[in-house]
């Protein structure tokens, strides 16, 4: 899996994320476009789709909610 993404928002929000605070994800823009490559037969459908993700930077790490583009 690889992805390209963008994260931006008001300076005070980005600064709060930088300090490791928990920030409401609706206050900034964090989106990615993941791509997948696999040889595993059960997951070969991943080779054939485009996906988009909403993401959230939490103190313990980022969480990506990945949607298949139908």
């Amino acid at each position: 899996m690889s992805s390209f993404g963008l994260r931006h928002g008001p300076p005070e929000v980005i600064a709060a994320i930088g300090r490791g605070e928990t920030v409401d994800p609706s206050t900034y823009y964090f989106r990615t476009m993941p791509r997948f490559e696999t040889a595993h037969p059960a997951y070969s459908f991943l080779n054939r789709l485009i996906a988009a993700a909403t993401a959230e930077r939490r103190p313990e790490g980022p969480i990506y909610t990945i949607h298949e583009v139908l």
Partner: protein
Amino acid sequence: MSLPINTRPLMVLRLATSATQDIGSTPQGKLTIFPVVGGSFEGDRLRGKVLAGGGDWVIDRGDGIFTLDLRVTLETDDGGLIHMTFTGVRDDAHNYFRTAPRFETAAPKYTFLNRLLAVGTAEIRPDGPVHTIDEIL
């Protein structure tokens, strides 16, 4: 907990291409280059024409999927230049043709494009491909 995803229309893009350059079977697949010679785009926030000189590098992977790799320059009706790229997947057997466009511009009116991700649905029409591109909110 999981964040929904929403979109709003950005533009409909029509591309005009000239004769293909059939490179043939390479280690990556069967490569065909579609030179872009023109076209148009239109949306609520921007509209204009596609400049000649771009192209779409299309690889037939051999598993029923064509991958796209496009670079074009858009010129808005008020003179702004926008570099647009996308990669995409086309699966004719499943009527699936989707792209992930990106934009780069220095034109002040259109810098919002530098800050967004987008998704495109596309279809092949007799007069060329038509891409409906939505901003990811």
